[in-house]
């Protein structure tokens, strides 16, 4: 019974991690511009992240190491430096995007411009990390995050042609705006396969003191949680296609357009639901990224870490998230467009994937770490596929950034 509770909580938590400003923005853009045609990118991204999260959890539960620990220990400091720097940079950009997401939600709610909210939001997030415990943050974000289910409800209420939705799950070539199409596909993959997600997950497994008895729960949480998150992202995409595209709005390049997805369905409550979903999902993601950044640095250099400790007891750890929050608030406070920043950081996330995913191939096959719980054929094939995908994404992202970005 306790395990069951834990699994459902874990599932909900993973939704909190999965759905953030990146998946909302990329799914909305894709639905508006290409209707159901890019659903496959969400599905593919979700499959990839299921595999990576399951492996990160398994690795932590069996070896009692986080992924960051494992990379440093096996590959040495010099090799560890590259994924470290790449992830620090990507986390910084994504953090700025999440602060921007919360700031937009607050602008929509109050009418006060988003840049004025950047510092208060960063401060509030810092306060949560400063005073909160891991369980409090995990559970709070998870339960409030359920509000994002309104996208799925909305999608069902619009009665889409499910056959067409299913057809969108199969990759097809675009008949217009090819560069834009591929750029969106890359951004969706970047938004789904976030390194912070699986690295955070492995740290969480250590914080929650997982051992081998959690392997089943881990599999269930990874599979169900990420599919749940993917379903919500598909919900956003369907709503965007059936509301925005149907009204002739094919370009979502202004965040003011986003609430229009839900208003025609739910009226004024649609506006409220959108603001709440965006605010909560982004705030939750900001907390998780703040923690992940601190975990990564602390684990990389072997400092004391843990969200359950008091800041006095892990000064290095709390300094890292404090600095990150201050820095990440700056671009938004200066008025940088949060939507553009989001799309840019999602594409960069996709490009950074090989650096963090290649180590999985080694760590999850190393008997010294995972013993008999090594990767099987399918899991290894999945890792190799993700690495190949990551390399392709890394190579195409830069030209697409120039040619296809909005």
């Amino acid at each position, binding site marked *: 019974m306790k395990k069951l509770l834990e699994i459902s909580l874990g599932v909900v938590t993973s939704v909190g991690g999965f759905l953030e400003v990146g998946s909302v923005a990329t799914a909305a853009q894709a639905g508006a511009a290409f209707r159901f045609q890019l659903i496959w990118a969400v599905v593919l991204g979700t499959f990839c992240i299921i595999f990576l999260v399951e492996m990160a959890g398994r690795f932590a539960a069996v070896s009692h190491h986080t992924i960051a620990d494992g990379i440093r220990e096996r590959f040495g400091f010099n090799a560890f430096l590259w994924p470290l720097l790449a992830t620090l940079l990507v986390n910084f950009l994504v953090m700025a995007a999440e602060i921007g997401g919360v700031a937009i939600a607050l602008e929509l709610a109050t009418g006060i411009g988003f840049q004025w909210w950047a510092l208060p939001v960063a401060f509030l997030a810092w306060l949560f990390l400063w005073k909160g415990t891991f369980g409090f943050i995990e559970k709070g974000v998870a339960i409030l995050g359920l509000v994002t289910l309104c996208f799925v409800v909305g999608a069902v209420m619009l009665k889409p042609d499910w056959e067409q939705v299913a057809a969108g799950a199969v990759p097809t070539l675009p008949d217009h705006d090819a560069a834009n199409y591929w750029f969106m596909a890359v951004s969706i993959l970047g938004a789904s396969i976030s390194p912070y997600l699986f690295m955070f997950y492995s740290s969480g497994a250590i914080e929650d003191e997982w051992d081998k008895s959690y392997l089943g729960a881990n599999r269930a949480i990874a599979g169900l949680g990420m599919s749940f998150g993917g379903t919500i992202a598909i919900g956003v995409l369907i709503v965007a296609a059936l509301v925005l595209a149907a009204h002739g*709005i094919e*370009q979502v390049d202004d965040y*003011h357009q986003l*609430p*229009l997805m839900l208003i*025609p369905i739910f*009226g004024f409550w649609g506006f409220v639901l959108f603001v709440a979903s965006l605010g909560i999902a982004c705030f939750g993601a900001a907390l998780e990224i703040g923690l992940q950044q601190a975990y990564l640095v602390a684990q990389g250099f072997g400092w004391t870490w843990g969200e359950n400790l008091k800041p006095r007891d892990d000064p290095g750890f709390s300094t890292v998230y404090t600095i990150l929050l201050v820095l990440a608030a700056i671009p938004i406070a200066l008025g940088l467009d949060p939507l553009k920043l989001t799309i840019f950081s999602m594409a960069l996330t996709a490009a950074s994937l090989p650096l963090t995913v290649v180590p999985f191939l080694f760590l999850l096959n190393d008997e010294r770490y995972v013993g008999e719980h090594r990767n099987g054929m399918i899991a290894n094939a999945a890792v190799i596929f993700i690495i190949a995908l990551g390399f392709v994404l890394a190579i195409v992202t830069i030209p697409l950034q120039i040619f296809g970005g909005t």
Partner: protein
Amino acid sequence: MAATLQARIVNAVTAVGLRPDRPCLLLIIFVLTACSPSDQVEQQSKTAASATQTASLVLESWIAGGAPSEYTSRTLQSAGKALADAGAQIQSAKSPEPSGQAGLTMAVGRLSAAVIRAATAVQNGNRSEVEHAQQDLRAAAADLSTSYAKYFAPKS
């Protein structure tokens, strides 16, 4: 699409300090874009159409009580600005078809004015003025699609 593509390539190339007059670069640009210069007009017209539809959807929602005034007026201002930008870009494009281009520019200009007018009306809570602006918006939107159809009509 491809004309903005072309502009982006040229910008990118100059940004990295290369002179874009190299034959091979031109060739790459040509292969990548391989389209007429009227693509910029097409792209901007699409942006204008999308912004127009955004404005009309948010106005409808406001009238139906779904969208709060503050949000509606901000969205309209933002759409109006997007329209003004698109208009300026269409005007400055080197199009082989000056008369059609002028028609498009005018339609987009009217749209932008109507949207800004609606934004002010929403802010003041003036319902009848909003409805007037909405009618203007519809007329100008119809104008835009006529000009657009004329501009891209098959000629020979």
